[in-house]
Structures are given as C-alpha cells and as structure tokens.
C-alpha cells in the first residue's frame, strides 16, 4: 500500500511528509516499546505507535522506517514534528486504536516485520 492509501483507509491526518505519499509500504511494526522497534523493525516498514516524543523520530530514522503512524488520535508535539521534517520522516495520525489500525492494515496486505520471535523462552514472561 502507498502512504496515501494508508492515510485514506485510516482516515489519518498527514502531519509531516505530504510530498512522500507515494512511498510503498509492505511491512509494519506496532509497539509502544521503542526497544522492541530497535530490535525487530525492518527497513522500509511503517512504525505504528502511541508514543509522541521525539525519540520515535530518531528511532524511525535509525531503523529506516518509511513513516510513523501515530494511533489513538494523538498529535505529537511541535518538537517531534520539527525533527521529523528535519530527518525527512513522514508522520501520520489516526484516531483508530493500535489494534484496529494494525488489523485494518493487515486485512489490506501489510504484514508484520517478523511473524514470531525466535529464540529463548526468556522473552516471554511465564
């Protein structure tokens, strides 16, 4: 899907990067834990998050996310949006919750960066 199609589907506001709406997105990673984004996000994926601090932009730049999609109707503060413009990362905001956002994208062909975490059980608290 292109960013434009994603924005249409989720009735999202485009806060930064209106000139990048033709970017094609194939994968996504939903998280409010930026540590997990760093560990599991793939280049080109869209970051779906409920956080709005400037860290989300730096992380997106570092893992090569194609865009940030902020959920639950949140609008990031000015400093986050300014940094996004500076680092050239599109930012969209949707009123859908994270579950709905992810589900709607999945139903339209976007898949997760990883299906299932490989490795020791220690990542899964018993």
């Amino acid at each position: 899907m292109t960013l434009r199609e994603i924005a249409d589907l989720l009735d999202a506001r485009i806060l930064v990067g209106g000139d990048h709406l033709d970017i094609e997105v194939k994968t996504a990673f939903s998280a409010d834990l930026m540590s997990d984004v760093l560990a599991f996000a793939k280049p080109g994926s869209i970051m779906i998050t409920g956080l709005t601090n400037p860290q989300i932009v730096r992380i997106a730049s570092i893992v090569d996310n194609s865009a940030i999609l902020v959920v639950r109707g949140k609008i990031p503060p000015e400093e986050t949006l300014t940094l996004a413009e500076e680092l050239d990362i599109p930012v969209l905001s949707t009123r859908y919750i994270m579950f709905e956002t992810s589900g709607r994208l999945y139903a339209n062909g976007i898949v997760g960066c990883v299906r299932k975490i490989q490795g020791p059980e220690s990542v899964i608290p018993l």
Partner: protein
Amino acid sequence: MTQRCECFFPVEGGRFEDAGKVSVEVKKMLKKIGIPDDARRRAAIATYESEVNIISYAIRGEVHLQVTRDHILIDIQDAGPGISNIEQAMEQGYSTANDRIREMGFGAGMGLFNIKNCSDTFEISSEEDKGTHLKILINR
C-alpha cells in the same frame, strides 16, 4: 581510496531528551562516507542502544567511532555503576530500568542483546562502581 574517519561524541547521563542524537549523527556520517545500508543501520542501532544505556544508568560516557578500510569500530566507555552480572544483563528481557526509562519506551531488556545481534564482533567488560566498556565491530 576508501574513506575513513574517527570521531568522539560525549553522552551525558540522565538527559533522556538527548537520547538518539549521537546515533543520528553517526548514521549521517556513515552515509556520507558511503557505508552500505545494512552495516550503517546496524551501527546506528548498536550506537542508539549504547547511548540509551549511558543516559539511563551512567553519569557520563563517550562514543568513539572509528571507520577503517574494513570495519566500523564503535568503542563506548562510561563512568557509572557498572554491571555486576554481565551474563544476566545480556539475556533478552532482563532489565533494571526504572519508570522514567520505561515511560520513554525503553527498558525492555533488549539493549545489550540487540547490540550483540547487530555486531560482527562484540566485547563487553565492566567494573562495579567504575563503568562499562563496549567494543562493537561491524564489517563494512
């Protein structure tokens, strides 16, 4: 001639608002000297995690980036409490993060594990009440 570079970046403990600034600079610099996407991305992720560790736990630290003909070497030294049990700290999901760290979206216990994962060679040493030293080597 293959481009090389050497830079030092100071990191101050406790300044959560600065987290990632050094890594973004490192990534820009590696792009400028033509490091391929994958190596550049791994270097930036490893630097980011290290930066967050210094900010979260240490008093101050320094990131020393060195790019040679074949490698990217990221040497990170901090002055801080050190790590008493490195083996445990390396485990996925193990974390001693406080609420402030978690509010920022960190403290999942993935840091050191992820740094190792991004490295081609990784060395860690630590001394309690002195600090921690990481050597991250990534092939160009």
